[in-house]
C-alpha cells in the first residue's frame, strides 16, 4: 500500500502490467480519501503488496471492495455534512412531522443489497479457488509449537524430488513459480500461519491438518508472523518464507542432506561438540551426531518439553534466524545485504549461510546465557507442577562463558 509506486522494492515484481494497474488502483483509492495519510514503504508484511498469485487473487478481490466502501463512505459522510450545514436551526418553523416514505426506504434497502450481491459472487469464486489443493507440486509440512514453527519436507516426488526427510525451523524454503501446498498442524495450542505477501492466514489447530497454498513470483524473503494468540511469547513467534530459483533450491536441498561432519579434533568446536552432547542434545537433534562411544545421539525432547519437540539444529547456520525467527543470526549489515539484494544475486547470498564474520554473536550468546530472559517462556521450575515438570520453551541452562564460547564455535559449523 505504498503511496509512492516509483520507489519500488528491488525484490518486487517487474511486471509492467501489474505495476501500472497497481499504480492506478493506489491512485484511485488514495484519491478517494481512504488513505488520508501516507503508509509505510516496504513494510515486510504489507497485505496490499502481493508477491504471488494467491495473494494477488485476494488483492484483486479486495481493492474493488475497498473502493466501493470508500465511495459509499464518502457519499454518506458528505450527505451528513450537507445536512448539518443546511438544516441547522436558523429559527425556521417546526418541520412537517413526516413519518417516512416507504418507497424511498425500500429503494434504499435494495440498493445496498444489490451492491453486496455484486460483491458476493466473486467472493465465493475466490474462496473456492484458494481452497484448491490438487494442482500443487510441492508439499511442505509445518507444525506450530509454543513459540516457533517446525518445517519438514516429507519424502516425495514433488519439490523436484526429496529423497530423505528434511527438517528445519523458522524459515521455509520454496522454489519460485511453483504452487506449494503447506499442510499445517500444531503440537499444543492454536497457531496461525501467515505470510501476508503470499497468501492469507490459516489457523493451525492441534489434531487437525489445514492446508494453505503458497507461491512466490520472485526470489526473496517473505516475512510472516503467528497471528493466532498462542500464549506468553506470541509476539516472538515469527517465520519467513525464502523463495529460491529451482537451481538454488536444489543446492539448498543438497546442503540440508549433506552428511554430518565432526569438527576437527583439538579445535574449540570439537570441545563444543562434547558440550553440545552433554547440554543440548537431550532436546536438540543434530542428525548424524555420534557420542564418544560411537552411538548415534537421538534427542528425546518429548521427555523434556511439554509440547514435545525442539528445533533440529543440524543445519542451523544455513538459516539466518533463530529462536522462532525472532532474532537474526546475521549482523545488521549482513542481514541488510541478504534482504535487500536483487533477485538475481539473492539465492547465492542466502545459500552462503552464516559466516564467522557475519554471525550475530552478541544475541546468540545472550540466548545461550539465559534464553527465558530474552524471550519470555514458561521455563521456571517453580511453576512446572501443572506440566508434570516439563518445560515450555528453553530453560536457563546456567552455562559458563567458556561453554558458551565452545557452543558458538560448534554451532557455527552447522551448515
Amino acid at each position, binding site marked *: 500500500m505504498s503511496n509512492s509506486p516509483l520507489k519500488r522494492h528491488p525484490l518486487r515484481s517487474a511486471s509492467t502490467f501489474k505495476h501500472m494497474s497497481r499504480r492506478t488502483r493506489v491512485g484511485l483509492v488514495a484519491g478517494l480519501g481512504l488513505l488520508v495519510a501516507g503508509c509505510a514503504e516496504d513494510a515486510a508484511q504489507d497485505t496490499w503488496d502481493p508477491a504471488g498469485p494467491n495473494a494477488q487473487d485476494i488483492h484483486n478481490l479486495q481493492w474493488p471492495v475497498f473502493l466501493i466502501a470508500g465511495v459509499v463512505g464518502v457519499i454518506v459522510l458528505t450527505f451528513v455534512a450537507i445536512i448539518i450545514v443546511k438544516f441547522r436551526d436558523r429559527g425556521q418553523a417546526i418541520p412537517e412531522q413526516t413519518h417516512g416514505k416507504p418507497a424511498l426506504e425500500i429503494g434504499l434497502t435494495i440498493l445496498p443489497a444489490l451492491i453486496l450481491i455484486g460483491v458476493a459472487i466473486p467472493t465465493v469464486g475466490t474462496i473456492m479457488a484458494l481452497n484448491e*489443493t*490438487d*494442482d*500443487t*507440486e510441492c*508439499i511442505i*509440512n509445518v*507444525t506450530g509449537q509454543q513459540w516457533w514453527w*517446525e518445517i*519438514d519436507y*516429507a*519424502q*516425495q*516426488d*514433488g519439490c523436484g524430488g526429496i529423497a530423505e*526427510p*528434511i*527438517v528445519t525451523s523458522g524459515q521455509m524454503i520454496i522454489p519460485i513459480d511453483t504452487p506449494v*501446498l503447506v*499442510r499445517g*498442524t*500444531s*503440537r499444543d495450542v492454536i497457531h496461525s500461519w501467515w505470510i501476508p505477501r503470499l497468501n492469507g492466514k490459516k489457523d493451525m*489447530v*492441534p*489434531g*487437525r*491438518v*489445514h*492446508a494453505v497454498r503458497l507461491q512466490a513470483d520472485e526470489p526473496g524473503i517473505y516475512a510472516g508472523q503467528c497471528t493466532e494468540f498462542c500464549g506468553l511469547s506470541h509476539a516472538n513467534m515469527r517465520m519467513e518464507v525464502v523463495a529460491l530459483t529451482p537451481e538454488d533450491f536444489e543446492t539448498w536441498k543438497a546442503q540440508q542432506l549433506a552428511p554430518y561432519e565432526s569438527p576437527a579434533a583439538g579445535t574449540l568446536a570439537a570441545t563444543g561438540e562434547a558440550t553440545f552432547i552433554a547440554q543440548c542434545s537431550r532436546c536438540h*537433534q543434530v542428525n548424524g551426531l555420534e557420542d564418544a562411544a560411537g552411538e*548415534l545421539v*537421538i534427542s*528425546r*525432547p*518429548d*521427555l523434556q518439553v511439554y*509440547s*514435545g*519437540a525442539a528445533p533440529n539444529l543440524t543445519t542451523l547456520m544455513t538459516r539466518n534466524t533463530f529462536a522462532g525467527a525472532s532474532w537474526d543470526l546475521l549482523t545488521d549489515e549482513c542481514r541488510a545485504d541478504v534482504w535487500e539484494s536483487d533477485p538475481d544475486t539473492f539465492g547465492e547470498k542466502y545459500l552462503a549461510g552464516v559466516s564467522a564474520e557475519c554471525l550475530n554473536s552478541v544475541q546468540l550468546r545472550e540466548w545461550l546465557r539465559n534464553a527465558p530472559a530474552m524471550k519470555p517462556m514458561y521455563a521456571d521450575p517453580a511453576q512446572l507442577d501443572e506440566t508434570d515438570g516439563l518445560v515450555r520453551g528453553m530453560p536457563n541452562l546456567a552455562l559458563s562463558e567458556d561453554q558458551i564460547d565452545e557452543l558458538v564455535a560448534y554451532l557455527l559449523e552447522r551448515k
Partner: protein
Amino acid sequence: MFTTGSKFLIGACVVATISAIAYGVTQDGVMGTVGLASAAVALGFLAGINIYTRDSNIWDDEISSVETAPAAARPPANSIWPMAFALGAAVLTVGLVTYQAVFIVGVVLLLATGAEWTAEAWAERASADASYNAEVRNRIANPLEFPLAAAIGIGIIVYAFSRIMLWLSKTNTVIAFVVMGVIILTVAFLAAYRPGLKSKAAVGAIAVGVLALVAGGAAAGLDGEREIHEHETTEGLTEEGEDICLSPEEFEADEKASQSVAASANVAAEITLTESGTLEPSVVGPLEEGTDALTLPRSNPNNVIFINDSDEHRRLSVDLTVPPVDAAEDEGPLLKCTALVEPGGRQNITLTIGAPSFAAPDGYFFFVPGVESARLELIVP
C-alpha cells in the same frame, strides 16, 4: 383424651415392642432384642408420665392468658406427623441393628417429619385465623417442600426407567424408548388439543402410568441388569497374553472407542486397506501413486483414519517400538491399533509419537494383523 406428646410416645413404644419381637424371632443373638425391649419399656414409662401430667400443661391460675392466646381460638387439627415421626425413630433404631440403608432412611424420615411437624405446630399458633395460619405454614414450608418433592419424584421415575432400560435387551431398549416418547407426545397432544379432557381422568391416567413405571422399575431392578460385555481397550494384552494389536481376532474391543469428534474432519491421513491387501495412504494434496511411506510430524496428536475396504474384519496396527532411553526401563514393544473394523467401516486412531523413526532399528510401520502384504512405512522426522 391423649395429648399429642403422649400419642407420639405411645406410638414409639408400640413400634419398639413390635420391633423387639420381630428382631427376636428373625435374628440370632440377644443384644438387639434387649436393646429394643429396653427402649420399649423406657418409652412406655415416659408415655405414662406424659399422660398423667397432660404434657405438664396448663396452670390453673393462667387460664385467662391461655384463653386469649391466638392459638386458643382453634383446636389443633388432626396431624399425621407425630405418628410419622415415631415411625422414623423406630426405623432409625431398627437400622442401627440391621442395615445402614435402613438407618439412613430412618434419619431422613425423622428429619423430614420433624421439620413438617415443627412448621405445622408453629403455624397453628400464629393466629386464630385458620386460613391465615395455613398461609403462614405454606410460606415457610412450600419453598422447601416443592423442590425436594419434585427432586425425589423425578429421581424415582428416572431411576425406575433406568432399571427398565438396563433390564431390556439392547434392541428392546430402543423400542421402549420410542414407545415412551410416543406416549408422552400423545398425552401432551391430547392435553393441548382437547383441553376439555376431564382433569381427574387425566391425573388418574398419569398416576397409573407412573405407578406402572415404578413397579416395572422395581421388578426389573430385582431381576438384575442384562449381561453387559466388558470391552477391552485397544492397547494391552489378551487373557492369553497375546498382544491385541498383533491379532486379527475380535476381543470385544469397543468399536466406538476412538470414533471421536476429531475423526470426521481434517485428519492427518487416511489409510485404506485395499481389496488386494495393501495399505494405501492418502493425505491432503497430490501425493504420487504408489507412495510406500507416510510422514507424520513428531510429538503431535495425529488423527489417522483407517478405512477397511477388504472383505474381512480387520484392524490397523502400528509398531512404534524404540530402544529405551534408560535400559533399565525397557517396557518391551510399543504397539497401537484400532479396534476390529467391519468391512467398509472406518475408524480413527490418534497417534502421538515422541521419538523419531530413525531411533527405531527397523523404523516404524503400519500393518494389518492377518494380512502379510499390508505394510506401510511410517516416517517421523
